[in-house]
């Protein structure tokens, strides 16, 4: 018993891998089997945490942290926002398929992806080195290696991605911006006396009203 315990403790990698693999697979199955979209999203969070654990087990600590911050902390939160605010947070009955032959196609795609991963895991033709060669260096110079790759070898693609993201954000803001107009002001004109009086009234009677400077901004969460 004692020796068994010792031998198990001596292999933390194996224990961590098994536990994380179970979490990842359970989460993945949950995503596609739950009827309620919120439950599916939560299963996806579970998968993300499992993958982050696997990253840590491979000494890729930075990737693990980014995985949690970006995917679990931002993207799936956005999923949940959309699900909750659109009011589709009820179990749906999928009696009719939206796209014909959706299920067989999904099965084929799954098998192809699995085959691809299995081949990539052993093949050398992509980069000349084996894809899955194990941990790169020890855990603390992980960040340095990523920084070196991103800011020297792959600087141009990295910056291009950054610009692309900024453009996407700006255009999203522009497209969703609604202009709310103060009707009285628009009709009477800013220079007429009536408006000045009305504004003074508003100031005196309703000091808790938001100031008119911010009226053209509509906050949508």
């Amino acid at each position, binding site marked *: 018993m004692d020796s068994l315990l010792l031998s198990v403790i001596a292999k933390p990698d194996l224990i961590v891998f098994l536990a994380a693999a179970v979490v990842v697979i359970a989460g993945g199955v949950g995503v596609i089997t739950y009827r309620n979209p919120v439950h599916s999203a939560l299963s996806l969070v579970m998968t993300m945490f499992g993958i982050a654990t696997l990253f840590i087990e491979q000494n890729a*600590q930075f990737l693990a*942290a980014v995985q949690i911050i970006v995917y*679990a902390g931002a993207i799936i*939160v956005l999923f949940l926002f959309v699900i909750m605010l659109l009011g589709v947070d009820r179990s749906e009955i999928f009696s009719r398929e939206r796209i014909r032959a959706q299920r067989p196609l999904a099965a084929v795609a799954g098998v192809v992806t699995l085959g691809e991963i299995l081949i990539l895991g052993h093949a050398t033709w992509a980069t000349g080195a084996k894809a899955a060669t194990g941990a790169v260096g*020890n855990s603390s110079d992980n960040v340095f290696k990523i920084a070196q790759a991103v800011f020297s070898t792959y600087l141009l693609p990295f910056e291009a991605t950054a610009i692309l993201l900024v453009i996407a954000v700006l255009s999203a803001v522009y497209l969703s911006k609604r202009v709310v107009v103060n*009707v009285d002001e*628009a009709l009477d004109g800013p220079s007429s006396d009536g408006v000045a009086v009305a504004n003074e009234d508003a100031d005196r009677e309703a000091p808790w009203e938001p100031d008119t400077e*911010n009226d*053209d901004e509509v906050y949508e969460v």
Partner: protein
Amino acid sequence: MGQDPLFLGHISIGVVLIVIIKVLLAFVALMVSVMLMIWFERKLISDMQNRIGPNRAGPYGILQTLADGIKLFFKEDLIPDRSERFVFKLAPYLTLIPAFLVFTVVPIGGTVHIFGHTVELQVADPPMGILFVLAMSSVAVYGTMLAGWSSGSKYPLIGSVRASAQMISYEAAMGLTVATVVLVTGSLGTRDIVAAQAGSYFGIIPKWNLIRLGVVPFIIFLIAVTAELNRPPFDLTEAEQELVGGFHTEYSSIRFALFFLAEFMNTITMSAVIVTLFLGGPDGPILFGPSFIWPIIWFLLKTGVFLFAYVWFRAALPRLRYDQLMDLGWKVLIPISLAWLLLVGAMQISKVYGFALFAVFIVAGVALLRAVAVGKESNEVDIVTTFRKESPRRGALGGDQ
């Protein structure tokens, strides 16, 4: 660098035991400090509001929290009919666990030697250190969000949407200020961050990040953390006048208590994180007696200052409006912290670059503010003239609004 000395050699039963003991000690310490913190907050805020506060259970009412806890345990646990049962039960734990996990990476003292092992006085010292704090605080959104949604009621949903929008917005400013600290440290590990702050300028002024980085990142971080914690003056999540009780309106009994436990635990851990990042953590002079005890005392004192400050904020500041909150986060804190990050980066290269960049930022900032003001004016004029041309009658527009 950033490597826990405990796990360097062969992992034996002794190491596993030490880890378990550390986790248990941290958990108990955190629970007890939450109990004291609730008493401290109630007592202090009573003093500030000219009341007496809890004074029945124990000396000076110090056991009041224990009494409240026992009471809550024995209350009826209600689950609303229209709630999503599983998520409703899960949500309090999703709030509580990240709150505890953040504390694990905070160094509360130096290192001690136990049974031939070098043990750092913190539960874990992973190389990703401070990123773990960011990760856990971004995961903490789930508890709040799901609690509000699963209650199956309107006010909790509004409260939780407010809370999660607020937490996501302020995370950006928080992350950028953490990046400035990481930039001068050159490591993500919390122990390295603390070690880099040891020493002093001219033998008097401590070399803490508070002074090294200029005071701006510290202030931004303090504001961002207060918003992240949903504490006053950023407690729109539970604005009683507007939302009944916020995201936990439908909760009762021990589940309700768990939310408050998590909130106070978060307050304590985030104060500890501020101390770690900007005030040198357990750094301080060793005066007399055993040398390992002084860092712990300094750490507790510094954390205590921030706990006091949070209570003070609550007593002194009125609650912000929602648009003010979003303006502060997106239009003030994020640009300033971004500029300061670039500035710190330039200072790392050379002082000349740094000051040149500082001047450029001031000019650019003034130009940008002017541009925004001009744009706003011209927009207003445009809208007015177009509306005059297109719809001269009042009735046509009145229906639109």
